[in-house]
C-alpha cells in the first residue's frame, strides 16, 4: 500500500470517528446554549440510538429505513421525557451544579435501563447499503462510512439553517444569550429548553444508529463517547455549534493520523495534549471569543 492509499485510509477513518465526536459535541452545545447545563448523559442518546435501532431491525424485523425514523423519533421522545422529568422542575430553583449532578445520575440510570433490556453483550446492525468496501486510491472504504459522513453533514447543515434562518431557532439562540431578556420579549424559555433536549437526543440517535453497523453498540458505550464529544465541544469553544463540529472532525483526524504515523499508543494522549494546549493558549476554544465567554455563566 503506497503513501497516498495510507493517507486516504487514515483520512476516512479519522472523518468517521470525527463525525461521531462532532455530533455528540454539537449535542452538548445545543443543550448548553439553551440551559447552561453540560448534559453528561449525551453519550447515552447515542447508545439508545444504536440499541433501539437494533430492536426494530433485528428483533422486530422492520425495514431499515422505517426503523431508522422510528429510532430517531423514540430517542427524541426519551430526550424530551428526560427534560420534563428530571430537569424542568429542579432547574427553577436548583443551582447549575445540582443540574449537572442530575445529568450524571440520569446517565447511570439510562445505562441501567439499557442493561436490563439488552443485557451486557454488544449488538450489530446490517449495513445501510452494501457491506463490500469501495476501493479508492488504494484505500478500502465501507459504504457505511459515506452514510455516516453524509448523515452527519446533513444534520449539521440543517442545524445551521434552523438556528440562523428560522424564528424558533433564533428564539433558541436568544435564550442562549440571555434567558431573562428572552422571556421578556415573549419567548417561551421552558419550551426552548425542551426543544434543545429533543434536538440533542435526535443528533445522538442519528450518530448511534449510523455507527452501529461498523462499531457495534452495547449498554455502556456512552461515557467514552460523551468524553470525546465534550472534548470537541470545549475545543471548539463551548457554545459554538460550528466550532464543536470542526473540532470533532479535528479530534478524529488527529487520532487516526497519530495511530498511522506515530503510534496507536499515543493517539488519545495526542488528542488530549492538543486540547490542553489550545485551552492554555486560547481558553475560549478555537472558535470561541473571550467576550461571549464572559457574558455566559458556567
Amino acid at each position, binding site marked *: *500500500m503506497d503513501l497516498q492509499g*495510507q493517507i486516504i*485510509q*487514515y483520512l*476516512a*477513518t*479519522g472523518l*468517521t*470517528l470525527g463525525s*461521531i465526536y462532532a455530533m455528540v459535541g454539537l449535542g452538548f452545545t445545543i443543550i448548553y446554549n439553551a440551559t447552561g447545563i453540560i448534559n453528561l448523559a449525551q453519550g447515552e442518546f447515542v447508545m439508545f440510538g444504536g440499541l433501539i435501532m437494533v430492536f426494530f431491525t433485528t428483533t422486530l424485523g422492520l425495514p431499515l429505513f422505517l426503523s431508522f425514523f422510528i429510532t430517531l423519533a423514540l430517542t427524541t421522545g426519551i430526550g424530551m421525557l428526560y427534560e420534563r422529568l428530571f430537569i424542568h422542575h429542579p432547574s427553577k430553583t436548583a443551582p447549575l451544579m445540582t443540574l449537572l449532578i442530575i445529568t450524571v445520575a440520569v446517565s447511570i440510570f439510562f445505562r441501567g435501563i439499557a442493561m436490563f433490556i439488552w443485557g*451486557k*453483550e*454488544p*449488538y*450489530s446492525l*446490517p449495513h445501510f447499503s452494501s*457491506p463490500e*468496501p469501495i476501493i479508492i486510491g488504494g*484505500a*478500502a472504504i*465501507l459504504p457505511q462510512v459515506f452514510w455516516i459522513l453524509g448523515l452527519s453533514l446533513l444534520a449539521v447543515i440543517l442545524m445551521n439553517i434552523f438556528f440562523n434562518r428560522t424564528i424558533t431557532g433564533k428564539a433558541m439562540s436568544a435564550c442562549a444569550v440571555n434567558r431573562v431578556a428572552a422571556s421578556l420579549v415573549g419567548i417561551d424559555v421552558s419550551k426552548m429548553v425542551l426543544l434543545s433536549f429533543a434536538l440533542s437526543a435526535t443528533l445522538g440517535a442519528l450518530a448511534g444508529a449510523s*455507527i452501529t453497523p*461498523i*462499531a*457495534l453498540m*452495547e449498554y*455502556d*458505550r456512552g461515557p*467514552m463517547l460523551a468524553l470525546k464529544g465534550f472534548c470537541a465541544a470545549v475545543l471548539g469553544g463551548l457554545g459554538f455549534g460550528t466550532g464543536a463540529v470542526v473540532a470533532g472532525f479535528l479530534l478524529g483526524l488527529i*487520532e*487516526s*493520523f497519530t*495511530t*498511522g504515523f506515530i*503510534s*496507536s*499508543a499515543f*493517539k*488519545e494522549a495526542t488528542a488530549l495534549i492538543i486540547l490542553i494546549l489550545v485551552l492554555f493558549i486560547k481558553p475560549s476554544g478555537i472558535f470561541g471569543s473571550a467576550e461571549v465567554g464572559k457574558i455566559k455563566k458556567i
Partner: protein
Amino acid sequence: MNHKKLSKISLITAFTLFFCLSLTGPAMAQGPIKIGFVASITGGASWLGQPEKDTALMVQEWINKEGGIKGVPVQIIIEDSKSDASQAVLATKKLIDGDKVVAIIGSSTSGESMAMASICEAAKIPMISMAAALQIVTPADEYKRIAGTIESPRVQRPWIFKTPQTDTSAVEAIYAHMKKKGITKVGIVTVSDGFGSAGRNELKRMAPKYNINLVADEVYGPKDADMTAQLTKIRTSGAQAVINWSIGPTQVIVTKNWKSLAMGMPLYQSHGFGNKKNIELAGGSAEGVIAPLGRLIGWEKLPKIHPQYKVLSRYATEYEKRTKSDVSTFGGHGYDGLYLAIDSIKAVGPDRTKVRDFLENDIKNWPGTGGVFNMSATDHTGLDLSAFEMIQVVKGDWAFAK
C-alpha cells in the same frame, strides 16, 4: 448412692464428648463436606460468574445424586464477589472461618483471585482459581524473574491452583500454527486493558522461541469504535499475519475492519474468541478467522475416543439442557475446579493438607473441560498448548484449522 454417682459420671462424660465433638468441627462430624465457591455472579464480570454459578449448582446436584463422596453429601457454598476484589476477600474469609470449607474454588477474574490467594495461603487452604493469569499461581519474585524471558516458572504458590489455560499456552498454540504455515513476520493489535496487555506481554515474550518477528505492535482502547488505522499500519509493515488480543465488542470490530480492508493476510484471534455470538455479530466478516480454542467449542467433532470426549459431552449437553443457553468455556473452568477438588477429597478425605498434596502430585492425565491436566510442583495449571485446538471459522461455524 452408687447408682447416683454413676449417672453423674456418665453425664460428665457425655458432656465432655459433646464439647470435644463440637470443637473439632464439621470435618469430624457427619455433616456434609463443604466446598467454597466464590464467583463474580453480579457486577462487571457477571458474564463469567453466571455460567460458573449455574455449573456449581449442577455439579452439586450430580454429585449428591451419585451418593456424595463415600456416602457423605457435598455442600457447595456459593458466594458472590460482585466482581469486586474486596468482596471476594470477605467471602473467602467467611468461607474459611465461618463455614470451615475444605477447599475454595474462585474467583472468576484474575484481580479477585490474586487478592484471595494471599488469604488462602495464610490460612493453608487449597484454592483453585477460575481465572487465567499466570501471576495467580506464581510467586511474585518468580514471575518477575521469568518476565521478558521465554522460561517457565520453576516454583508455584503452594496452596494455589487454577484451571483456565494460560495466555502463554494460547500464544504458543498460535505461534506453533504459524510456524507450520511458514509465517515469520507478524503484526499484533491488542486492547489496552488487563486481558490485552497480558496477552501483548506474552506475544512479545514467546516470539523468539518460534522465530517470529513482530513487525508491528499496535494498541486500542476497550471502547474504541474503529481499528482501521491500526490495521492499515500493520498492512504497510510487511506482516504476513495479524494477531488480535481482546475480549468483548472490540474483537468483533477488529474482525469487521480486517474484512473491510481486504488485507490479504490471515487474522488470528485470542482464546477469548470462543463464542458463537462473535461470528454472528461479525455478520460474515469472521470467515477464515483462526483462534486457539479449548475443546468445549466444537466437542461434537472430536473423535469419541478422545480422553476429553466423555467429560465434554456430559457437561455440554447437561448444561445446555439445564440453562437453555450455550455452553461457555468459563462455566467449564468452574466445572474443572470443582471436580479437581471433589476427586481429591474422594481420594484422600476432607483434609486440607492432603487435598493440596493430592492436587499437586496426583492429578495426572486428568481429563477436564479445559484440557487434560497434569499438575506438578512447578506447574499448578497443568495444561500446555495441547489444551488448544486451532479452530477456524468456516461457513459461520467452527472447524478444525488445517
